[in-house]
C-alpha cells in the first residue's frame, strides 16, 4: 500500500475530529444539566470550556490545510478532508449554542424555573445521540445511515413546537412569566439549531462518500 504517511495523517485527523465531537457532546449535556439543576458553577464551566473547543477546531483546520498543501489530496481524499473541515466548523458552532444555553442559565438562575424541565432535556438527549451517530456514520463512510439520521431531526423539531406552544400558554395565562418563558424559548431554539447542525454533518458525509450535495434540512 502506498501513501502510508498520508493515510496515517488522515487517521489522526479523524481522531481529532472525534475528540472534538465528544467535547461538544459533553458541553451540550452539561449546559442542559446546569439549566435543569440551576447550577451556576457548572454553567460557568461550560462557558470557560468553549475556549478548548475552539482551539481543537483550529487544530483540525490547521492540520487539514497542511495536508492539502503538502499531500495534494484528490477525489475521495480531497472530499474527505474538506468534509472534516466543515464538520469541525459545525461542531464548534454547536458548542457555541451550548455556551449560549449556559449564559441563559446564568441570567435566569435567580428565579425558580417555570416548571420542571422535561422536553428540553429530551431535545438535548436526542441532539447528542444524533450527533454521536452522525459522527459514527461519517467514520464508517455510510451515506445511507447519514440520510436516516438526518431524518430524525424531525423528532427534535416536533419537541421544539411542543415546547413553543407550552411556553406560549404560560405567557398568555400569566404575563409575569414572560421573561422566564422567553429565556427557555431561546434555550429550545438553541437545541433545535444543534440538531440542525447534525443534519449538516450528515450532508457532508453524503458528499464525502458519493461526491453529491444533498440538501437534507
Amino acid at each position, binding site marked *: *500500500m*502506498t*501513501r502510508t504517511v498520508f493515510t496515517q495523517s488522515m487517521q489522526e485527523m479523524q481522531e481529532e475530529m472525534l475528540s472534538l465531537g465528544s467535547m461538544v457532546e459533553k458541553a451540550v449535556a452539561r449546559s442542559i444539566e446546569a439549566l435543569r439543576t440551576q447550577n451556576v458553577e457548572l454553567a460557568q464551566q461550560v462557558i470557560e470550556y468553549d475556549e478548548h473547543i475552539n482551539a481543537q477546531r483550529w487544530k483540525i483546520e490547521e492540520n487539514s490545510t497542511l495536508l492539502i498543501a503538502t499531500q*495534494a489530496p*484528490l*477525489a*475521495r481524499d*480531497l*472530499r474527505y478532508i474538506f468534509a472534516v473541515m466543515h464538520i469541525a466548523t459545525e461542531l464548534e458552532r454547536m458548542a457555541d449554542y451550548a455556551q449560549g444555553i449556559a449564559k441563559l442559565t446564568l441570567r435566569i438562575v435567580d428565579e425558580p424555573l417555570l416548571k420542571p424541565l422535561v422536553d428540553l432535556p429530551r431535545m438535548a438527549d436526542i441532539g447528542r445521540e444524533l450527533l454521536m451517530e452522525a459522527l459514527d456514520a461519517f467514520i464508517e463512510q455510510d451515506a445511507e445511515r447519514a440520510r436516516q439520521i438526518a431524518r430524525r431531526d424531525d423528532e427534535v423539531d416536533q419537541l421544539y413546537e411542543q415546547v413553543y406552544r407550552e411556553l406560549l400558554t404560560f405567557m398568555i395565562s400569566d404575563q409575569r412569566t414572560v421573561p422566564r418563558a422567553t429565556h427557555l424559548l431561546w434555550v429550545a431554539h438553541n437545541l433545535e439549531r444543534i440538531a440542525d447542525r447534525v443534519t449538516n454533518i450528515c450532508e457532508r458525509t453524503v458528499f464525502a462518500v458519493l461526491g453529491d450535495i444533498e440538501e437534507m434540512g
Partner: protein
Amino acid sequence: MAQRSLRPEMRRAAKEAPVGDAIMSARDLSVHYGAFQAVRDVNLSFYENRITALIGPSGCGKSTVLRCMNRMNDLIPIARVSGEVLYHNHNIYGPNIDPVEVRRRIGMVFQKPNPFPKSIYDNVAWGAKINGYRGSMDDLVERSLTQAALWNEVKDKLKDSGLSLSGGQQQRLCIARAIAIQPDVILMDEPASALDPISTLKIEDLMQELTRNYTIVIVTHNMQQAARSSDFTAYFSVGEDRAGYLVEYGPTHEVFTNPKDPKTEDYITGRVG
C-alpha cells in the same frame, strides 16, 4: 506574474463556451509493436479549443496513443496501428493521406526541448519556409514567438542560437516552431517534465492562451498539472496482458473530484501498488 493573473478570466471564458465538435477521434485504436500489443481498443475524442490530458502509469500506452494522433508511430518500423484516427472526420491512416501533411496540421512538442542548432529566428521560420509559406516571414516569426509568450524575451537577439536559451525558453521556442506552420492541433508529450516549476507554470499558462486558436492534447505524469491545466482527462491503465487501455474519460473537474471508476480513484489518490 501578469500572465498568471490573466488566467482566471481566461479559464472562465473557456468553461462558459460550449464544448464544440470533436476535432479528432480515436476509433477502436490498437497498436502493436511486433507481437506485443501496446494499446487495446481505445475510443476517445478531442474537442476543439480544449485541452485534453492523457494520464496513467508508465507503460499504459498514453504516449503511444499520442504518437498515433499524428502518425509519429510510422517512424517506428515494427509499430502497427489498427482502427481509425479521425481528423475532421477523415481517417489519417486512410489511403491517399500524406503523413507529412498530417504532421503539419497536427504539431508536436516533445518532453525535452529540441531546438535546431540554428538561430532563434530560423528555428521558427524553418518549418514555414519548407512548407512554402508566402507571407512576411518577419511577421510570422514575431506572431509565433508572441503567441508562444517568448517574443519579449528574445526580440533583441533573434540571431542568437536557439540553444543559448534556458530550458523553459527553449521549450517555448519549440512551441513557437510548432505553431509557425499553423497547425490546429498541438500534441504535447510531457512538455514540462524537464523544466523547473516556474518554467512549468509558464508553459501551462501558455497552453491556456493557445486554446484560443488550437486544440491541445498533453501527456503528463504530473497529476497536478493535468488537474490545473486540462478541460478533459483520460486515464489509461495497463491490463493483465500488459496492453494499455482507456479506463475513464471525462471532464477534468469530475475525474479529479469524483472519478467513476475505482481504478481511476486508486491511481489519482496514489493508492496503487
